[in-house]
């Protein structure tokens, strides 16, 4: 199928997901379940990665700044900029695309090939809305929270690295952190994380929803979901950065 065909089909599915004819009495229940699955389930991996990446970024900065004219506080400043601008939104989104995207695509794909989606349709349930809406809304809510958490832990990781290696004292790291701090950068990251949340859940749901075949196709499509969602994230990262920062 060509890109445009896929894109059209994807738009129709998203439209159907939000149109919701008839009520879904299970929505609240499902929403909180997804919040737990997509949110709590990802806290561990994001916490670990953020701590380590923050530490690594700080050490790399320290290693690269050997010019005496550049103040050592720059380590704190540069760590903050990398973490806030790019790492906590984009890199975290790419990790979530792998983790959450493949699980959504295979869950919905399995329901497709075992005719569970047909069974929903026959009952008169809008299967797209029933299956996809709770996932999208939950991830729109929880992704910014995960991103904020990742920012905090990234900065904290840098701080730990400074302390443990002795390359910089705590007050200087802090001075660097606060140097020319622009709150808008946090907003920018949050906006990105919301867009990426939508991309990850909707693309992987689309890949799962239209699986044809059996377990092999379910597997193939969840891989595709991760790849396509990652490419879309990189593309929209470029667009949003151009719009919001320049």
């Amino acid at each position, binding site marked *: 199928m060509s890109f445009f065909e896929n894109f059209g089909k994807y738009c129709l599915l998203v439209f159907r997901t939000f149109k919701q*004819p*008839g009520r*879904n*009495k*299970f929505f609240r229940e499902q929403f909180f379940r997804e919040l737990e699955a997509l949110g709590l389930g990802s806290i561990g991996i994001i916490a670990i990665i953020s701590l380590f990446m923050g530490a690594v970024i700080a050490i790399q900065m320290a290693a690269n700044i050997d010019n005496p004219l550049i103040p050592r506080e720059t380590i704190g400043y540069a760590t903050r900029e990398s973490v806030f601008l790019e790492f906590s939104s984009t890199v975290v989104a790419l990790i979530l695309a792998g983790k959450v995207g493949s699980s959504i695509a295979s869950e919905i794909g*399995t329901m497709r090939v*075992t*005719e*569970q989606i*047909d*069974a929903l*349709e*026959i*009952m*008169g*349930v*809008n299967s797209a809305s029933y299956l996809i809406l709770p996932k999208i809304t939950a991830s729109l809510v929880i992704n910014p929270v995960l991103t904020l958490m990742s920012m905090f832990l990234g900065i904290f990781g840098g701080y730990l690295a400074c302390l443990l290696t002795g390359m910089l004292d705590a007050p200087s790291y802090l001075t660097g952190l606060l140097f020319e701090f622009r709150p808008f950068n946090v907003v920018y990251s949050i906006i990105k994380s919301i867009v990426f949340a939508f991309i990850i859940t909707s693309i992987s749901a689309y890949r799962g929803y239209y699986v044809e075949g059996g377990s092999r196709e379910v597997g193939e499509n969840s891989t595709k979901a991760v790849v396509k969602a990652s490419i879309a994230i990189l593309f929209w990262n470029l667009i949003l950065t151009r719009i919001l920062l320049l």
Partner: protein
Amino acid sequence: MIEIKGLYKRFADKDILTDVNLTFEEGKTNLIIGQSGSGKTVLMKCAVGLEIPSQGEILYSGRAFTHASLEEKMAIRKEIGMVFQGGALFDSMTVEENVAFPLRMFTDMAKSELEDRVNFCLNRVNLNQAHSKYPAEISGGMKKRVAIARAIALNPKYLFFDEPNSGLDPRTSLVIDALIQEITQEYKTVTIVNTHDMNSVLEIGDHIAFIFKGNVVWTGDSNSIIKAQVPEVRDFVFATPLMKKMFK
């Protein structure tokens, strides 16, 4: 009453169904029979709207279905119960939750009323011990019965069964057949059953349509099928040595 008028279905360039015209009445068990690959499942999927017919119209008690809007289709579908070949139970829900699902989705029943209805439906299919089991933990025959319980939960007017007996032992098969017939007569449903099980044909075939390569080549009932003169039907009916011995 369900009427199928001038139905065609094409996949790519291949004609799967050609000019199917059938009428199914209330309180009767209507069977669609034919060899594997003849188009039974495709016909059923067209009837309930899971496949879009290339041409033709389906009427539910006079209401046009095939070309209806999504909202109208959904309204009619709330009156449809369907049992899929593989059961199609929701695997993240227990047996009980599966049966309760349509009730919770479409009615405002109080908790006790809901429980009563779920128990009633599960009793109806003789399943009393599996309430809190998950589909992965029960046998194929039990899955079929849960699927039937779920399909009848909302008292549907139209019931579809795709191969309700495939993969079941002869005894369980008979139980399911009897159940289908009882429900049909008790609730005056329009019941349509896809099958290639000759036992079912002889037991519950009030009205039988024989499909061969996408064409309806014979219609009748369980008495007349033994005497049918159409060669394809004879081949099908007397395919087993047992049938040959019994009727020749």
